[in-house]
């Protein structure tokens, strides 16, 4: 009998305690962030969409090798010395390789940041942009090369011409490897 009354009392009092707690929670500051209107402050080292600064990129392909999911594709063409179009890097050195293709597939990217870590010239960097949802996956393939297809063709022709002349001039001593296309095998 005592236990019975105790049980009833425990049930009632715990209900009231619970109601007091929920009552207090009615008036505390809400945690909701009204997303499109107000935004969460990004952490300092937030890793979001990548951006490639082409004038810094020397086409070394380290990023493509470092990427664990192979979402970067880099293709380069050596700069022919006869090319009237020459470029200087941010550090004042001449460009050695044209980057004819630089694709990042953000549908694959896992935002690990390894590519930014290995880049010798800090050409590839995370931005603060994270709202870029699209309706089809193809739109997530970002192309960062600055050369037009015509320019690429032109560069290839110039290089081939230069090679041909070089072969004629130094027929025996061309120990250097021929035109080297850097393509990540696993990607395609």
């Amino acid at each position, binding site marked *: 009998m005592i236990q019975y009354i105790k049980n*009833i009392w425990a*049930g009632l009092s715990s*209900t009231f305690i*619970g*109601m007091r*707690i*929920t*009552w207090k*929670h*009615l*008036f*505390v*500051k*809400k*945690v*909701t962030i*009204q997303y499109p209107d107000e935004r969460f402050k990004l952490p300092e080292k937030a890793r979001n969409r990548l951006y490639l600064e082409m004038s810094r990129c020397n086409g070394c392909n380290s990023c493509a090798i470092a990427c664990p999911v192979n979402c970067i594709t880099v293709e380069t063409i050596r700069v022919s010395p006869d090319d009237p179009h020459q470029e200087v890097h941010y550090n004042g050195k001449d460009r050695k390789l044209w980057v004819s293709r630089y694709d990042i597939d953000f549908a694959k990217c896992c935002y690990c940041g390894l590519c930014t870590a290995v880049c010798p010239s800090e050409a590839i960097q995370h931005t603060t942009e994270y709202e870029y949802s699209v309706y089809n996956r193809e739109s997530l393939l970002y192309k960062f090369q600055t050369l037009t297809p015509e320019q690429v063709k032109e560069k290839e022709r110039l290089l081939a011409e230069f090679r041909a002349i070089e072969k004629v001039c130094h027929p025996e001593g061309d120990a250097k490897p021929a035109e080297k296309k850097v393509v990540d095998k696993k990607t395609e």
Partner: protein
Amino acid sequence: MENVNFLYDLLGKNVISVLLIVSLPLMFVLVYALIAILAELKVSAWIQERLGPMRTGPWGILQPIAEVVKLIQKEDITPDRSSKLLYNLAPFIIFTGAYAAFAVIPFSEYFVPAGINLGLFYIFAVGSISAIGIVMGGWASNNKYSLMGAMRSVAQLISYEIPAAMAVLSIVVLASTMNMQEINKIQSGWFWNWFIFGGPGTLAKLWVIPFTLGLGLIYFISSLAETNRVPFDIPEGESELVAGFHTEYSGMKFAMFFFAEYANMFVVAAVLTTIFLGGWNSPFGDFMQGPFWGVFWFVSKAFTVVLVQIWIRWTLPRFRVDQLMYIGWKVLLPLSFICFMAVSLYVMLK
């Protein structure tokens, strides 16, 4: 005694006035249900430190309208193997049961749709119609979850009808009438004349106050069970029964269940208000007392009770079936008998 009804006074007793009287509570229910849905959304959100709906209208106040429109637009699916007639009838029967109770609810001194002398008895009688509707819906859906939900619901309704009836009967003993309008009139004056505080009387009533308070609590708890609300929502416990008896319903018919639930909440809140909280009486004697203020007091008291129901819903977890039966038969029923005896003794001694 003849009940006053302002519409009869105004228009005379003809078809139009009767129709108006019948449809007034319906309009009230529709508006009230929208507000109650919004309150439910907002209170639950605030208790969980969220904001709730914010984008439909200012502060999301149009959200219930959007939800109703959505429900009306939805496809109305009837299961292939269901019993079509019963299946389609069930939501309307449940809503009818919930709405029928409004006939005797005294909104004001001058407005009660049908002031019959057996008001409280009538409320309990039509309350059982919902149980029939629930069984019909659960059985006709031809779905084990629906059937189980319906059976649980009826078991629960029957178990909790008794303590609720005992609580109401005690007040009937105290007031010596079943006419809800009369009960309201007895409680006029200050709030200590309300039946939850023992009704009008001399200081000798002090010893009966704990019992009437207990009766109020018992009625409130049983009314939660009768409306299938948390913590007594095992008939529709979504974690075990999908949605209980209305698992198969969609579209407009689901909306009927929805409305019926909110209408039922208001009915029990209105009964609680009428028999325990003084109905349309102002709590402060003659201050703001009158037919129009009556509506205000009545609706605000009943709505406060509804808010408490919502508040409890977001506080307590659901009972197990055995706990539910334990509380109904072993706690509420004996306690309501004790309170009934005490109140009867008080009335005899008076």
